[in-house]
């Protein structure tokens, strides 16, 4: 039963991944490494959230950084200006951004391909200008300080948020899986394959794209809001950066957009690499060059991502073992001998 063994392999992989993620804070040698772990998990949630749109419908958004930024600022402002408790503010912020995603999606999802990419970039740039200029409300370039939700030491603070991000990641992955196996998901994927054809088969493509965009925006905002509560300081330049969206695209593509854990794997690889490059090359733009090279390599040599590439490798080995040319000729020889007798 190849199906059963596939399920066991999948289950083992998930259990290993979960164990590795859960054990990390205990083995992290210092708070700095632990905080890098929080960042990587934040990327994993963001990349998985991005993949609700990118993976299912094939619409490549570079604007998801802006949705995360909105989630961050909404959470922070609800705490600072409205005096809401931190996590109530987080939930309210996610709902607000999801609601805002309805008109945003209605505007952006009218266009396809490169045009959609450009519209999504425009979203980031517009919000960057707004949040920088509207200093009386957002704090502008001076930044916005977000009060911490817990009174903890720095290492403990990182540890708690590490697990909060891990929990959010589990929910996002579960939601993606639920859609992936559903009729809704299959029809979404048919939009990715051929949107007009899907429409002609009776799929209300626009409504489907909008629903999944709103879900994606909600999860992205949750990640952004949680980041704001963790990091405690927001600056429009970093919150509304095209780089964030580009990193998410790189992570999702690198890991594989058709795979449940593709974006997570990509986030772990790219996130770790980014942190490493930043430590090694400090403030030089070399980490950007490295990111660009990585993206180029992925697109050229692993267009489906790392996970499928590894899967293909296994398949190739498996096939040679099960039906090599030698075995076939041996069987034929036996046949010939039988026929001769």
């Amino acid at each position, binding site marked *: 039963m190849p199906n059963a063994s596939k399920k066991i392999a999948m289950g083992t992989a998930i259990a290993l991944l979960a164990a590795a993620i859960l054990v990390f804070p205990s083995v992290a040698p210092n708070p700095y490494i632990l905080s890098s772990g929080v960042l990587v998990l934040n990327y994993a949630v963001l990349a998985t959230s991005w993949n609700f749109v990118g993976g299912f419908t094939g619409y490549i958004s570079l604007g998801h950084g802006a949705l995360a930024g909105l989630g961050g600022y909404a959470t922070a402002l609800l705490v600072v200006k409205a005096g809401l408790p931190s996590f109530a503010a987080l939930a309210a912020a996610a709902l607000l951004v999801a609601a805002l995603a309805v008109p945003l999606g209605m505007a952006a999802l009218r266009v396809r391909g490169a045009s959609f990419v450009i519209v999504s970039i425009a979203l980031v740039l517009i919000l960057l200008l707004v949040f920088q200029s509207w200093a009386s409300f957002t704090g502008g370039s001076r930044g916005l300080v977000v009060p911490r939700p817990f009174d903890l030491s720095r290492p403990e603070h990182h540890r708690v948020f590490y697990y909060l991000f891990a929990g959010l990641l589990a929910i996002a992955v579960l939601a993606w899986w639920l859609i992936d196996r559903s009729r*809704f998901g299959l029809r979404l994927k048919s939009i990715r394959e051929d949107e007009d054809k899907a429409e002609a088969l009776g799929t209300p493509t626009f409504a489907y794209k909008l629903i999944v965009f709103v879900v994606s925006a909600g999860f992205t905002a949750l990640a952004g809001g949680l980041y704001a509560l963790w990091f405690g300081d927001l600056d429009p330049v970093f919150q509304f950066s095209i780089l964030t969206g580009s990193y998410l695209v790189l992570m999702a593509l690198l890991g594989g957009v058709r795979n449940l854990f593709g974006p997570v794997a990509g986030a772990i690889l790219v996130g770790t690499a980014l942190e490493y490059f930043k430590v090694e090359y400090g403030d030089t733009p070399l980490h950007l060059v490295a990111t660009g090279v990585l993206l180029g390599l992925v697109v050229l040599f692993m267009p489906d991502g790392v996970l499928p590439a590894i899967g293909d490798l296994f398949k190739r080995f498996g096939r040679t073992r099960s039906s090599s040319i030698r075995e076939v000729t041996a069987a034929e020889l036996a046949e010939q001998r039988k026929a001769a007798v």
Partner: protein
Amino acid sequence: MSLATHELRKAFGGVTALDGATVEFHEGKVNALIGPNGSGKTTYFNCVTGMIKPDSGRVTYQGRDLTGKAPHRIARAGLGRTFQLCRTFPRMTALENVLAAVPRGGLRSAGSRADIEKAMSWLTRLGIEHLAGSEARDMSWGQQKLLELAGVLMAEPETVLLDEPAGGVNPALLDRIGTLIRQLNAEGRTFVIVEHNMDLVMSISDHIVVFDRGRPIAEGPPSVIRSDERVLGAYLGV
């Protein structure tokens, strides 16, 4: 009342593709739409199925006005279509291609036993059940045409519009497609077929509409169309 259009017009820039096409197709029959290249047949299909909006005129189906409605609404009203250059979902398996046409969405599993059985029965009927697990992009042209048809039929349309079902298909498969259309018609489905292969058109059609320069110039059963002078003129450029 079956599928009908009234004074349908569509121009692309200065080119008039449809010039007041008033047509009524016969319900429960195999209808064919023929005409020389550029006579507006595909534009007509696209206007009827909502892929493009006509400049003026009306499309009605079973008494309902479908003019300018979104393609998915028209599909759900019971009109299924294939495309001239056959279109499948290339990176989905044959089975998924057919399942993607299940009329309802929702968060229920896409692989329910009933859905899979029904999808497999269509694949079997079209003779490509052995390819259920293959991705569409790995299939041959003919197999993809059969797959596209299986998907359309899965959506349970009462009327099926086929844009050149015989295009690029070998003679053996052509026979099979012809027989299949007659069988599906006998089960109660209405067909409207755009086709250049006159042998196929003449052998399977009950009713033929001939287009020239964006409007019908003749209609009737094959025996009448075969000897119509206007039709010969349009085709031969006399």
